[in-house]
């Protein structure tokens, strides 16, 4: 019997179904990657966060190395909503892969307005970047606290009929409370998580390695943080969680799925190897085949955790 069944990679995230659970992380993906592989193999396309007006972003240098990862302080350079609607949307709408648009803003009003303005045909879901540590000083973003999260997600919920994802930050001390606040306010899914605030100094010049002094850490070094938060949020919430942080190998993908993620986003790994997402899809399929698994349900949320009860 088993031989007759084929592996079904499809991933359900609330009401949406993606043909596989692999999608890019916001800010690490653009049309430029189409030079390297066929972007339609991806489960979804997630765009760099856009803001309402045009913005330059942070001073350079905007990136630096660390052991097993990188730190970025790109900021959110943005060409604004008009450019998105007129130039970007038509380009992405031509793909089969569903389009997820990431948005952000400095105030709740602006956020809600942008949310309603990007709710256009061709857009499949909206990812609310309520967590970018570069927008406000010291990493303070809406997602740092349950109350501010609840407030902004409530307003975003009212502003769109599209599926709404809230992207959380690992910089908060209350990840579970923030996740619940997003759920209670009507988010359809959680993206867990954005970058961790860090810093690096050039000892020869005694200057920060980033123009912005501090920046967001990503890559393998932060994977255990994102995995822990994914596990915490998946246990605490009923809405699906999309894992994100340091994913670069098949083992990483499986760790997040086992911890409870319904899908995953891949960021920094694409900078090391632009074809990594396409490879992960193939490797996941091969791995499932070799183990006789036919559905992601046989992997997602299957952690054997005898002592897990002691954690919230």
């Amino acid at each position: 019997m088993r031989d007759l069944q084929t592996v079904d990679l499809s991933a359900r995230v609330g009401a949406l179904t993606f043909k596989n659970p692999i999608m890019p992380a916001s800010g690490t993906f653009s049309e430029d990657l189409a030079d390297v592989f066929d972007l339609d193999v991806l489960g979804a396309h997630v765009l760099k966060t856009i803001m309402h007006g045009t913005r330059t972003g942070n001073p350079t240098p905007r990136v630096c190395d660390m052991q097993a990862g990188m730190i970025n302080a790109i900021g959110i350079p943005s060409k604004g909503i008009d450019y998105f609607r007129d130039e970007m949307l038509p380009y992405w709408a031509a793909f089969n892969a569903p389009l997820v648009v990431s948005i952000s803003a400095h105030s709740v009003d602006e956020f809600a307005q942008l949310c309603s303005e990007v709710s256009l045909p061709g857009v499949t879901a909206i990812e609310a970047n309520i967590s970018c540590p570069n927008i406000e000083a010291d990493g303070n973003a809406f997602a740092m606290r349950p109350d501010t999260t609840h407030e902004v997600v409530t307003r975003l919920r009212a502003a769109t009929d599209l599926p709404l994802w809230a992207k959380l930050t690992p910089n908060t001390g209350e990840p579970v409370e923030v996740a619940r606040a997003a759920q209670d306010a009507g988010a359809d899914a959680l993206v867990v998580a954005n970058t961790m605030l860090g810093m690096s100094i050039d000892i020869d010049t005694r200057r920060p390695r980033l123009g912005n002094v501090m920046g967001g850490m990503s890559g393998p070094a932060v994977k255990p943080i994102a995995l822990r938060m994914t596990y915490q949020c998946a246990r605490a919430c009923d809405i699906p969680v999309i894992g994100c942080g340091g994913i670069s190998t098949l083992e990483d993908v499986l760790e997040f799925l086992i911890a409870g993620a319904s899908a995953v986003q891949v960021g920094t790994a694409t900078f090391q190897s632009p074809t990594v997402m396409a490879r992960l899809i193939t490797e996941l399929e091969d791995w499932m085949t070799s183990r006789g698994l036919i559905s992601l349900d046989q992997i997602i949320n299957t952690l054997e955790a005898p002592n897990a009860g002691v954690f919230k």
Partner: protein
Amino acid sequence: MNHIPTTVSVPVPQGLRPRCAEATCFVRSNTPVNGEYRLLTLDAPEAILDCQPGQFFQLLCPQPDGEHPFLRRPMSIYGYDKAEGRLEFLYKVTGAGTRGLATLRAGDAFNVLGPLGQGFSMQDDWQNLMLVARGVGLATLAPLARMAREKGRKLTAICSARSPELTMSVDLFESYGAEVIIVHDKDGSSTPEALRPLIEARIAKGDVDAFYTCGSSRLLRLLQDLGETHGIPGEIAMEQQMACGLGMCQACVRSFRVGGRVIQRRVCREGPVFPISEAM
């Protein structure tokens, strides 16, 4: 070193021959050129050898003892030959990544991504070319020598260095028929003040239709000034810290003055070659 399997083939859009690709190369040699510079020569697959002078690769550097370069490092193409399957980089050892490059030995496998970016153009009416380069900038400008010869252009190369022994690539320029002028810091011939009359004399003889340069902001300002005064166009190859090298992350922006406005462009995608007149 990081693990990037390149044997798995990935689906490429119908009809698109990848403009750039990840590829495993093998080291032919990796030898010191002079004090600080090394020449890395690779056996490279054909697929990545449709290069233009001025383009670059993103190199996945091995980890030297006790250091952990994570991001790829951008390096200009110093030499390439599709028929021979050869790709060359001339690099200066400055930090963790280039120290890692220096550990490569003949036969080692080595992952590169490229060719990337927009190379130099050589417009039809640019018949007499003048190239002004210093230090590692020579690595970027060297392939122009072959291009000039192939297109039948006349090339004058002003090679600047701290001292005469430290000039590089002179033989390479001469082998492609370029006239080489060596200037250096020891006798003061490399200062903008000394270069200006030298270049102006050539301009006066009608010997300069276009400039090429790279790196140094003092040279840039000199050439911008001369270019504006005498109506001579030109191109500069620029550098900036990079993450993706493909245009995705916006790490590598620089400011340019275009039509009275200051705009930002990505060095890895719109560049690394830009009009001298727009560079800042």
